[in-house]
């Protein structure tokens, strides 16, 4: 026995069989359960069905519904009712939609610009699923005009404000060490607010994700994985280069990445809302986005104020932080997918919280030299309040 325990364990056939044993037993239990029901009465009074209407597409005299069966069994689409009228429809690929399968329902319907429509889909088990089209208008198609439109939205809410923020760089360089620490704390505050906002948005989208795709779990996976991955990258960098300047630059890049993901999510949300007519991007709203997101540019440069980053680095950071808003607007505008939105927002949240952790480490380095508790307090609070107040303009 003692002999065995000192030896390194070896993977023998016996180990293999022992590993397999619970799996074989499991197969037996499942087989038994499937055949007998395990003594439970598993038959429900009414068939359980769930049909998600993922999106609708309006073109002249046509309403197209993209649906997904998220129930446990196959669903047969029997009839479609629009505004209290039974409408003929065609469905592709099949009337029967398998579990997690998708289908497109096509209805020739003379809808009118600006009016509201309630669409009800009846399955063969007489279960009704509805979607409201609150304001009908032609769904933006992927042509050059809408492509440019979504690009502009992304530019306004992402790229332009971040670069405006970065333009503070020369001025802020003149500030003293204490002020710079204050700015770092303010950045942490900004990011905390942004992180909470990102989580909240992810939760909102998670409600729209078909339940079988477990939106909340997806947030956890995206956020935790991103946090740990960025943490590992940052630790690896610290190991290879002990250079403080290099570290601050990489923190700045990571802030840019985190903010980039946040803006990707924001772009998705704006693009999706815009394409289904849920928001009108008024002048005031665009100005609000610019004012709020200018602080994001400020956050990116805060860690490198005392260094001399190249113009190229600053430009790249600005693009990393802002350009994803354009990408998000495209994706959200053309193929709104709550699943992707949740995933991107979760990644954004993970990145943002990791960056807060990095900034906290940098601030700690500063405060070991000189204690300045009120600076940190007022900095973080200022950052959070800045976003809260500017947020009033766009919420």
């Amino acid at each position: 026995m003692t002999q065995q325990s000192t030896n390194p364990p070896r993977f023998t056939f016996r180990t293999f069989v022992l590993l397999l044993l619970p799996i074989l037993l499991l197969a037996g239990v499942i087989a038994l359960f499937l055949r007998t029901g395990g003594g439970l009465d598993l038959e429900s009074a009414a068939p359980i069905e769930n049909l998600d209407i993922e999106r609708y597409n309006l073109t002249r005299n046509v309403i197209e519904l993209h649906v997904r069966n998220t129930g446990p069994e196959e669903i047969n689409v029997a009839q479609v009712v629009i505004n209290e009228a039974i409408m003929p429809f065609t469905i592709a690929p099949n009337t029967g939609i398998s579990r997690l399968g998708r289908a497109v329902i096509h209805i020739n319907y003379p809808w009118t610009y600006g009016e509201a429509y309630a669409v009800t889909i009846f399955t063969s088990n007489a279960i009704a699923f509805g979607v409201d089209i609150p304001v009908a208008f032609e769904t933006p198609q992927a042509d050059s005009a809408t492509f440019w439109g979504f690009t502009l939205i992304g530019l306004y809410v992402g790229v332009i404000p971040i670069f405006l923020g970065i333009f503070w760089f020369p001025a802020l360089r003149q500030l003293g060490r204490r002020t710079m620490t204050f700015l770092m704390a303010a950045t942490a505050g900004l990011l905390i607010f942004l992180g909470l906002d990102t989580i909240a948005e992810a939760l909102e989208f998670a409600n729209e994700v078909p339940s079988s795709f477990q939106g909340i779990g997806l947030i956890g996976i995206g956020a935790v994985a991103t946090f740990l991955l960025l943490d590992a990258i940052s630790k690896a960098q610290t190991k290879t280069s002990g250079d403080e300047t290099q570290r601050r630059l990489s923190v700045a890049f990571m802030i840019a990445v985190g903010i980039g993901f946040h803006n990707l999510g924001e772009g998705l949300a704006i693009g999706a809302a815009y394409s289904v007519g849920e928001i009108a991007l008024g002048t005031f709203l665009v100005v609000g986005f610019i004012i709020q997101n200018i602080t994001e540019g400020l956050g990116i440069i805060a860690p490198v104020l005392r260094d001399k980053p190249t113009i190229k680095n600053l430009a790249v950071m600005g693009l990393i932080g802002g350009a994803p808003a354009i990408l998000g607007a495209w994706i959200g505008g053309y193929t709104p997918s709550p699943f992707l939105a949740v995933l991107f927002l979760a990644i954004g949240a993970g990145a943002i919280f990791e960056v807060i952790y990095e900034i906290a480490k940098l601030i700690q380095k500063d405060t070991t030299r000189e204690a300045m508790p009120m600076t940190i307090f007022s900095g973080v609070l200022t950052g959070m309040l800045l976003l809260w107040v500017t947020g009033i303009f766009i919420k």
Partner: protein
Amino acid sequence: MKNQFSRRDFLKAGGLTLLGAAGTIGANTFLHSGHDHNKGGTTASTTHPIQHDGGDHGDLPNTVGEVDHEKNGFHPDDILTAFDYGEVSTLPNGQTLREYNILAHNKEVEVVPGIIYPAWTYNGRIPGPTIRATEGDRIRIHFTNGSNHPHSMHFHGFHAGIMDGVPGSGPGGMVEPGESFVYEFDAEPFGLHLYHCHVFPLARHIAKGLYGTFIVDPKAGRPPVDREMVMVMSGFDVDFDDANDFYAVNAIPFHYQNHPIQIKVGEKIRVYLVNILEFDLVNSFHLHANFFHYYPTGTSLTPAEFTDTIIQGQAQRGILEFTYKYPGMYMFHAHVTEFAELGWNGMFEVTE
């Protein structure tokens, strides 16, 4: 971000939307007037009453697919013209006796193409058999409840209290599963009546299919006509939210739209029209390109009105008599247009 626009809110705004829609259709028709734009009706080809115009202006309301009437065990075309005079014999006092066997039972019915509904039926059909007698005949109904819920048969007409088929009126008021009861009364007054289950919850017991027509002819009969038809206006609340999802005459939405009723120019038509619609306050009947003599409840031989549209509340009924002067395709439908587009729409195909 998500707009909370509930169905209830929508219904509130419904009237307004309908007005808007009507306006738009008018405008579009005007814009398209230069095109060869088919609108159905008189200029339409007679091969099919409803023509699609290839999505140029959308499709017209209709169901997709066809109900399996054979599996359902009844056909709206038969129900339209089937009158059940019962098993006839003569009582010792010389009175005519009409006996009927009626079984109430649960039945899965394809009430709309592709949609199976757990219906309750009299003799397996919706509406139940059209019971027809002459004033003064003795009616004897051998009623058996073959379902797993108590049911009854409540007739409109003169009868003794214990034959009323209402809970509390005696053994016939609520016939338990597996039990039987014999309803017996004289057919009077003459007119167009109906029968239905009267067990609580009443709306559900009726809406699930337990209703039928009861015709009492006057002793001397009505003036002869060429064709007689029965039309029972009802609806189905297939998702049990106490609001009808589909409407029809003789149960199956759009059946007579897709299979027009064939009549000849000059033929005298008599329609026995009954409204048993639950959940909605009124129902109506509008005949296109024609007028009809209307006999409310059929209790007089003199028409009360010469019109093309009548309104009926629940359990109201009346007899319509009309003749078509010209051949063509003619719609008849609820002029509660919402019902029409949800299934209560039909066509007469009139030929020389």
